[in-house]
């Protein structure tokens, strides 16, 4: 099953790299990769593939995987299927941090890109801390309060983000790129974004993988996890850290693409069951494939215009959230 998902991701990456305003053949891809591997200068017809298409597609896969892992962690942390970094307002917190970082402009562009994940992480942790504080009492989770807190925190942070964007526009007429980023977009992402994102992604994913078995125990509730020998409080802090890190890196790279972290873990759970040792890699692979395809559609559906990625994911995710809300009342929504 994991192999199948891996194949799907690989297929998505290849088609994502192939399709676009300039179609690229498999032969061209091989030639370009061979040229880079041999250290030769790129042929002009390979430049689009290597410098534009490939980093963008790989970054889409990374962002999709990060959001899905973050959602899976949030769902285990809050033991609720409705939890995800977007619904809980964590993504908005990350967006505020990243928006502030992006106010650095050329020649400080690289600084802004490098800083964005860290700033987004700070914002994500701030939002997560607030939502957790408001949605729990004495370690007990009150799902209604939690979702309301998520809405309130998310809306407030979003308002601040728009404020930052508007101030930027008045000062430097810089709003347009930030505006597009904010709606969710991978347009114009080159390798520097991928290299800036990778360490954060690896750290977050590594923390979750390290705790996969303990995440399973946490599904029985904190008390049972404790009596099964899981140090729950440190585990929760690490989960929040990893979830915030993964949300931050996704938002810093691709803006706010909602509901991916909500939908993908559910799909993965249907495919491999609730065991996090299989669920986490499955969520990462399917999430990566999903966002590569979504980004592909964003580029080609209304070509030459691009549809913001966040609009596509929200169109799919909104109804999915409602479906969970309506069917989940019996079990998950206690």
């Amino acid at each position: 099953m994991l192999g199948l998902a891996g194949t799907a991701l690989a297929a998505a990456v290849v088609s994502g790299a192939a399709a676009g305003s300039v179609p690229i053949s498999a032969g061209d891809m091989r030639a370009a990769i061979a040229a880079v591997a041999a250290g030769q200068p790129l042929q002009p017809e390979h430049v689009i593939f290597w410098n534009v298409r490939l980093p963008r597609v790989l970054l889409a896969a990374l962002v999709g995987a990060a959001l899905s892992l973050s959602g899976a962690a949030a769902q285990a942390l809050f033991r609720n299927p409705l939890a995800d970094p977007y619904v809980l307002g964590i993504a908005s917190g990350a967006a505020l941090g990243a928006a502030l970082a992006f106010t650095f402009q050329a020649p400080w562009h690289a600084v802004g890109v490098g800083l964005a994940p860290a700033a987004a992480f700070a914002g994500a942790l701030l939002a997560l801390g607030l939502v957790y504080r408001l949605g729990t009492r004495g370690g007990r989770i009150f799902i209604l309060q939690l979702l309301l807190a998520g809405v309130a925190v998310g809306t407030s942070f979003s308002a601040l983000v728009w404020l930052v964007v508007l101030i930027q526009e008045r000062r430097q007429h810089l709003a347009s790129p930030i505006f597009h980023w904010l709606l969710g977009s991978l347009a114009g992402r080159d390798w520097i974004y991928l290299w800036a994102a990778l360490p954060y992604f690896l750290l977050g994913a590594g923390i979750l993988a390290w705790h996969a078995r303990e995440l399973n125990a946490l599904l029985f509730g904190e008390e049972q996890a404790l009596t099964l020998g899981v140090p729950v409080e440190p585990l929760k802090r690490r989960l929040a850290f990893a979830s915030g890190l993964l949300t931050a890196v996704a938002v810093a790279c691709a803006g706010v693409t909602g509901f991916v972290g909500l939908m993908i873990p559910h799909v993965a759970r249907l495919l491999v069951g609730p065991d996090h040792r299989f669920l986490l890699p499955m969520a990462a692979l399917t999430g990566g494939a999903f966002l590569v395809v979504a980004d592909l559609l964003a580029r080609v559906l209304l070509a030459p215009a691009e549809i913001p990625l966040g609009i596509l994911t929200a169109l799919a995710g909104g109804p999915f959230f409602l479906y969970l809300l309506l069917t989940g009342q019996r079990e998950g929504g206690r």
Partner: protein
Amino acid sequence: MAAPRDERAPAVLVRVDGVTFSYGAQQVLRGASLDVMAGELVALVGPNGAGKSTLLKVMSGVLRPAGGGVFIGGTNVASMPRRDLARLVAVVPQESGFHSEFTVAEVVEMGRLPHMGRFAPPSARDRACIREAMAAVGVAHLASRPVTALSGGQARLVAIARALAQEPRLLLLDEPTAHLDPGHQLSVLALLRRLARRRGLGAVVVLHDLNLASLFADRVAVMRGGVIAGWGRPEAVITPELLRSVYGIAAVVGSHPVTGQPQVFFSPGEVVDPPRGTWYDLDVRSRGEGDG
């Protein structure tokens, strides 16, 4: 603490020593003390809100006592790493918490969590332990069934199997017979007594049914107002005086026609007066802190 030990006396497995605990301003445990021997089944009885569940949570290390302590082999439970503690003490909770689509075998395997490596697959010993635990409680035939599809009685048995897979020395069970039909109530308690005898486990079982407590427990501990008000063999503890003072009921205590153990005969309309503290206790309960 080093009192001379009588060699013939069974070893004390757990010593609960003057434990106090408060939920916020509400003091729930007010100096509860209790010893549990290896191989014995202790029934913990008492009115709602007396502190039974809270005492169990302190014994399992879930809650940290404000004063006093729980000692296993001389070591304070509060100072043990969670993983070490989980190899000594296993808990069968009131609520199974089985909301995820794990199979019975996978849930029982989680009882091996404190014994297993982080990434290693279950060892031969782990697998034997899981098999044996499922066989001991009679759920082996359900091994590949999702736990969300089990009846209440089956779920309780699976929770007991998971606890056994931990290979604990102390087993704590919070109302394991609640919501079970009489047949399942009897089989769960018979199983627990058998496990205690054969494996030398200490078992502390919160029960509301005094007659079952009398039939199955080696000793009965009566809790009231956050302390152990009395404990001993069933015939010494389950008396009309106790029923009146702890539960506020006047009832006749006879003896079982076959086994001779004390059995309580209730009468309709025989509530004398609700014992003091009951309303405060019920208030604690209604805030969701759990029964007992």
